[in-house]
């Protein structure tokens, strides 16, 4: 397991133990006592990590989902897929770096990948606006997905965005329009679609590539109608209440499953996906292969009907005389 970097307050005790462990490891002469302490420390680190990560608050979950070392689409492409042939551009305006698209191989399956990319270095991050797509990104995604449907390739969408980009150009080029059109078209695409929220599921920006036959979420990812900061800004007029907003919005994986918004939760390695990219990628890979096998036996008309029914069921309301208690999930 990789050592965590300094950063999160809630990871500080784990980090301190790691620092102590490193000190001991660097000692040239290792007495029996030192070796005993090292063993003890390792056990303590594992226990503490387990303890901290089994009980993350919603706000801590958001921090994990945004962790700078969290695996991104490009990491899954290199670790879970056998090949990635990038296809660029929306044939209309540009080649948005915030959504990457292309052919990929996964086990015996040839698939189309559509994934948000947040970038790792500063240069990458600014090139893709920290994973916030412009309309050309959604148009590019839709173009490639249409092609996938034409040639019978399954589509895999990896969702990881703070939200669609809020800017002048984005509005001028129809941000609202493209997100609407993508949902409209994805609901009828004649090929199977699997969506996985790998980090941040930021509102319409996520849903713009989020209509599929299966929607899964990683254990510490989140999927929300609004960012906790945005929600806090509206209600409490200050971003400082983000943790309270995170609590209220019920957007962690367990809630999403309970509300019927996601079908599956993919467990993360101990201490979060950022601790072990390989293990996380292999779990995602296993999930995708299993789901591809399952869905590829379903005739396409049935698939479309099931996709429709799945989203059709979402929502909680009262109907003629029902009491509030009956409607709660």
């Amino acid at each position, binding site marked *: 397991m990789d050592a965590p970097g300094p950063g999160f307050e809630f990871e500080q005790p784990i980090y301190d133990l790691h620092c102590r462990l490193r000190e001991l490891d660097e000692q040239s002469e290792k007495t029996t006592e030192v070796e005993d302490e090292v063993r003890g420390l390792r056990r303590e680190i594992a226990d503490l990590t387990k303890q901290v990560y089994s009980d993350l608050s919603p706000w801590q979950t958001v921090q994990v989902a945004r962790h700078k070392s969290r695996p991104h689409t490009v990491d899954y492409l290199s670790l879970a897929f056998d090949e990635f042939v990038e296809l660029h551009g929306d044939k209309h305006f540009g080649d948005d770096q915030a959504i990457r698209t292309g052919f990929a191989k996964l086990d015996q399956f040839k698939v189309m990948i559509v994934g948000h990319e947040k970038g790792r270095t500063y240069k990458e991050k600014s090139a893709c606006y920290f994973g916030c797509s412009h309309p050309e990104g959604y148009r590019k995604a839709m173009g490639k997905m249409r092609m996938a449907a034409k040639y019978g390739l399954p589509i895999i969408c990896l969702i990881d965005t703070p939200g669609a980009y809020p800017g002048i150009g984005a509005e001028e080029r129809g*941000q609202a329009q493209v997100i609407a059109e993508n949902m409209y078209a994805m609901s009828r695409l004649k090929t199977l679609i699997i969506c996985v929220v790998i980090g941040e599921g930021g509102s*319409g920006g996520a849903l713009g590539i989020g209509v599929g036959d299966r929607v899964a979420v990683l254990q510490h990812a989140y999927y929300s*109608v609004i960012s906790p900061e945005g929600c806090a800004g509206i209600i409490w007029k200050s971003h400082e209440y983000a943790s309270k907003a995170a609590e209220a919005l019920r957007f962690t994986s367990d809630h999403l499953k309970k509300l019927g918004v996601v079908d599956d939760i993919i467990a993360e390695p101990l201490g979060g996906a950022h601790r072990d990219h390989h293990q996380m990628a292999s779990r995602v890979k296993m999930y995708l292969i299993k789901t591809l096998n399952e869905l590829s036996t379903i005739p396409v008309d049935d698939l479309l009907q099931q996709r429709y029914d799945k989203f059709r069921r979402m929502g909680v309301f009262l109907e003629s005389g029902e009491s509030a208690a009956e409607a709660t999930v």
Partner: protein
Amino acid sequence: MSQAAAKRQKRGVPEGLWQKCPGCQETIYSKTAEERLNVCPLCDHHFYVSARERIVQVLDVGTFEEWDADLKPADPLEFSDKRPYVEKLKSEQKRTGLNDAALTGTGMIRARRVALGVTDSAFFMGSMGSVVGERLTRLVERATEQDLPLIIVSGSGGGARMHEGILSLMQMAKVSAALARYGEAGGLFVSVLTNPTMGGVAASFASLGDVVFAEPRALIGFAGPRTIKATIKIELPKGFQTSEFLLEHGYIDRIVSRDKLKSEIARTIDYCGK
């Protein structure tokens, strides 16, 4: 339009003999504005109209039959900030006389039967939660079954309703999927955008019309102007995110003033042979 003007408008036309127009700041005789369907006689500024009023303006007299009126909002997240969501719902219901932000049903437009949905920007800013999503989806499904032209008049400053969390977001997909089936079945959807149409409402059904109309000078867009300003830290151009801005950039078919709306819808239905 300034934020203050938008705010004032949400509360509706102030009662009383005289009122100040948020567009030209002139004092106008309320009755004259009412006669002109809540449009300023001096500057043509389109005031807020409630969903019920809109139905009266658009449909032939006495033809409206409401659908799914028995649906009521629930509180699946047990959402509470300063005040619990259920309490806020109660006060919004009391204030507006609506039980949620959309009314749906059927009626006639110049003797043509249509399926009509209207969102009311006074109820939780016209935001879409489960009830709005469900009502509109059922509306679209019935329009598909009965082969009716579909008209949705949108007014929403709120987009997807925060208080119902992720379920509100999913209503965007739900309604859009129903519209996709309606479209495949050959249905005609006329989407009418009014002030304001933002966020998740703009980014779903409101943008999916075969024909998209907008009232003059409505605020229409994906991200709120304040969010954009905070992100890019420059002043927004004049007229940004207005109906005219959208027309110029190719996202709406026609700007239609309120007094022409009914006849424009009827004409579109005729052209499309529905």
